């Protein structure tokens, strides 16, 4: 038993140190590309940390969104940065700007920043250590009301019933980010994807698999880790894969049909909210007998919208404009 607990400590210690080290290297190594790869690795290790903290729901979300999509977004943005440079005939631009970055570093001033931050870290650590050894969380209250929530996975119950209003606003944040990006009016990258037989094969194989896993996560979310966000981001990853393979949304679908898909998630929430209030109940109060059906409907549309929004975030420009140029 002694060995077991020692091993647990060793594993957690290794993950903790690994996280700090990866974060440090990702933030301070001189090359940008290396930093991004290290950041992706950081996200993967984060997933292990969530698992160790007994939060598989969060681990799923982290691996799909945090490591997967954010990583793809960062890589793609990095490539576009270089692309801009190359277009201007400044192939060595990045090197230059990085050297400039090194030059502007003034260790003395940076040391001045480090001191208060170190103090802050010590202070925060002290604050955390002062907490009571046992959490006064809400697990008991959640467990008590779980039966009335319509699902048996407590995290899904919190996200889609007890605190469904947060989730409504959160999907609104996603949609807003996309609208904000579209309103920047970025021109789509001119470089067309060259066909690649290996990639085609991979896409043909992976896309159905991603669809299947997404559907599975959506279904399993009611009673085990999973749910709309995880399912949506896996589905979104399928979209990213298709975009990378050179597939484009047909123009006939890129207008209103796409926009309707993007807003479906938040709109369903609003419709449900209005219906519950017309029934005389509170905002987003689901009658226990119908709660699981309502949550299922909310999750399906949320999954579709989240997937569409994430894929569109990756594309980074309006698809209905991309064909014109």
């Amino acid at each position, binding site marked *: 038993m002694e060995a077991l607990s020692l091993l647990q400590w060793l594993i957690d210690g290794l993950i903790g140190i690994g996280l*700090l080290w990866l974060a440090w290297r990702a933030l301070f190594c001189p090359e940008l590309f290396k930093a991004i790869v290290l950041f992706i690795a950081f996200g993967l290790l984060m997933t292990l940390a969530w698992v160790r903290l007994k939060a598989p729901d969060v681990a799923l979300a982290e691996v799909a969104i945090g490591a997967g999509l954010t990583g793809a977004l960062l890589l793609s943005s990095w490539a576009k940065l270089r692309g801009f440079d190359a277009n201007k005939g400044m192939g060595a631009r990045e090197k230059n700007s990085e050297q400039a970055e090194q030059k502007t570093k003034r260790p003395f001033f940076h040391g001045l920043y480090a001191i208060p931050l170190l103090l802050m870290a010590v202070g925060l650590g002290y604050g955390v250590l002062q907490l009571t050894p046992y959490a006064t969380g809400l697990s008991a209250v959640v*467990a008590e009301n779980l039966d009335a929530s319509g699902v048996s996975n407590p995290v899904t119950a919190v996200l889609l019933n007890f605190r469904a209003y947060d989730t409504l606003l959160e999907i609104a944040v996603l949609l807003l980010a996309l609208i904000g990006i579209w309103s920047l009016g970025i021109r789509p990258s001119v470089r067309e994807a060259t066909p690649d037989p290996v990639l085609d094969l991979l896409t043909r194989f992976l896309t159905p698999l991603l669809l299947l896993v997404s559907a599975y996560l959506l279904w399993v979310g009611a009673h085990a880790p999973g749910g709309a966000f995880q399912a949506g981001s896996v589905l979104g990853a399928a979209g990213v894969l298709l975009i990378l393979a050179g597939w484009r949304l047909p123009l006939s679908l890129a207008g209103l049909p796409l926009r309707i898909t993007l807003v479906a998630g938040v709109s369903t929430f609003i419709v449900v909210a209005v219906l519950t209030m017309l029934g005389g109940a509170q905002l987003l109060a689901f009658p226990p007998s119908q709660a699981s059906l309502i949550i299922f409907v909310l999750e399906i549309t949320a999954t579709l919208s989240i997937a569409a929004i994430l894929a569109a975030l990756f594309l980074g420009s309006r698809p209905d404009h991309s064909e014109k140029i």
Partner: protein
Amino acid sequence: MSIAILYALVGIGLFCLGVYALMIHAHLLRKILALNIMGSGVFMVLLALAGRTEITPDPVPAAMVITGIVVAVSATALALALMLKINAITGRAELNDAEEK
């Protein structure tokens, strides 16, 4: 000290590293990475401290962290798009104070 506290302290470390990097780096991609790592640190504190229990961990922080991760990816996407736009116009992915005057 328990494993919960260990991870909470790691979270604090990540947060402070992120703040430091956010302040000293000029390149916007680094700043965006720094914000993401700061965010991970906060999420880790939020979730780790829920592990101070013998029974099943508190689901509310887990739900909050999932919400936080989604918000973070939204913000990251917007920030990256903004960075690309700045780079397209000025040729540099950095904040440029001289331009604002």
